[in-house]
């Protein structure tokens, strides 16, 4: 699917990260990160494995605490708000995990109902079913509603994982390696789905990947993470117009369709 012109509101920051540091023991993963995400924008964070890309979005979702710096999400400093405030904030953030993270002991329907049941207790069974069917329809997998996660393919699991986040109608989507471990055709379908989610639900997204095809297809802006810092930001073409050998080699080892 071709990317359409979208309305990115450059006056409205939904995520603002300033001078972010994070270490694990002596391993200094993030060393002074600055990043802004605007309303309606898809930002791709690109980098090799182990450079701290996933750590970055886990900090944004409040799963990890930063050592230093400010992470402002929808007007909330995630390091300073209370657990209850963080829970309220998380309702507006969708997180698509690398492993899909579907609950094995629940069917697809129960997986999708789970966040609704936990957070919207006044919903009737009819409204629940309606919400589940709408979310599944959005990812094109209505027929899997009564299947178990173990019966789904990798691509289907990713889609259901995205549907589970969409059901809460988030303002921000965080995708952790959305195409990892998928074949090229399924990867393309996931890329299309990410763009479709952005257009249909007007979400702002951070997409973590080392797949340049995914980065090119989904990103309005790319930020390349190397050695714990962003070394280059811009559109796909701007980023890879660089003479930086590290970026060139990264480009050369990826297959661009």
């Amino acid at each position, binding site marked *: 699917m071709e990317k359409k012109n979208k309305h990115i509101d450059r006056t409205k920051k939904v995520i603002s990260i300033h001078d972010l540091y994070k270490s694990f023991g*002596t391993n200094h993963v993030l060393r002074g990160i600055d990043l802004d995400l605007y309303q309606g924008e898809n930002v791709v964070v690109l980098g090799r494995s182990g450079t701290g890309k996933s750590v970055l979005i886990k900090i944004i979702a409040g799963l990890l605490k930063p050592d230093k710096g400010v992470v402002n999400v929808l007007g909330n400093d995630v390091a300073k708000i209370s657990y209850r405030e963080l829970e309220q904030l998380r309702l507006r953030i969708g997180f698509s995990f*690398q492993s899909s993270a579907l609950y094995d002991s629940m069917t697809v329907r129960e997986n999708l109902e789970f966040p609704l049941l936990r957070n919207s207790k006044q919903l009737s069974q009819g409204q629940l079913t309606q919400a589940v069917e709408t979310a599944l329809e959005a990812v094109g997998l209505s027929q899997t509603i009564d299947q178990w996660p173990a019966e789904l393919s990798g691509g289907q699991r990713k889609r259901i994982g995205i549907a589970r986040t969409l059901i809460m109608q988030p303002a921000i989507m965080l995708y952790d390696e959305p195409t990892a471990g998928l074949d090229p055709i399924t990867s393309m379908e996931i890329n299309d789905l990410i763009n479709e989610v952005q257009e249909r639900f007007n979400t702002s997204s951070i997409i973590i990947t080392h797949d340049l095809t995914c980065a090119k297809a989904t990103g309005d802006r790319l930020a390349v993470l190397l050695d714990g810092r962003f070394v280059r930001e811009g559109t796909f073409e701007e980023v890879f117009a660089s003479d930086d050998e590290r970026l060139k080699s990264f480009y050369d080892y990826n297959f661009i369709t």
Partner: protein
Amino acid sequence: MSLKQKQPRRYIFTGKLDAFFTDVYAFGQFISRFFGSLFLPPYEFKEIVRQSYSIGVKSLPLITLTGFITGIVFTKQSRPSLSDFGATSWLPSLVTIAIVRALAPLVTGLITAGKVGSNIGAELGSMKVTEQIDAMEVSATNPFKFLVVTRVLATTFMVPLLMLYMALLAMLGAFVNVHSNEQTSFVSFIENGFHSISFLDIYSSFIKSILFGFTIGIVGCYQGYNTTQGTQGVGRAANTSVVMAMFLIFIEEIIVVQIINWFRMP
């Protein structure tokens, strides 16, 4: 922030001893987090009932078989010693004391540690390494309350009930054996058996079972919730849950028996 490489770590004792004490401290923190979360909403009643069913009802076949066989075997093994003194009429008393005071709580605890403890460790461990616990957290659900508090409460409630059930089954097994050898009637067996035990014996068994249930739940949850290193870690969590729970059960057994004996002294 200084990015200088830190000096190599110095240990207080040795690496392994330090790791042991760190683990003990972390386990203590985990227990205090459990009690801190216990009385805070949401209370997750549905999940507690679901876990109680899963832990209690699904353990019944194993408990039934083990209880009945324990009663028969213990009676058969005790008979020769008593018959040497012509005291086989004491069998109901001996068997009842053994079952109520020691066998029922201990065997139930050990069996539940093996079946339920390993299951909890493996289930939570698998959820941890496949990011399902993180997924629960980002969907604004407190995973500690939903996964840990419910399971620990379920084991704490269900192990005493399973112990009671096992004691009854073991008594039944003992009666079958006594009746087939000595033609003792059921009423006579029960009268002789219960004449020799006191309420203190029953209380102490319930206290032990509550402690064992709590231990099985909290150890399984602690091991599973802190699993690292992928599928290998899941296996280790399941295994450690059983070993650690059994070890603690024996320690608790010794302590409770000692305390109860102080009360028993004239």
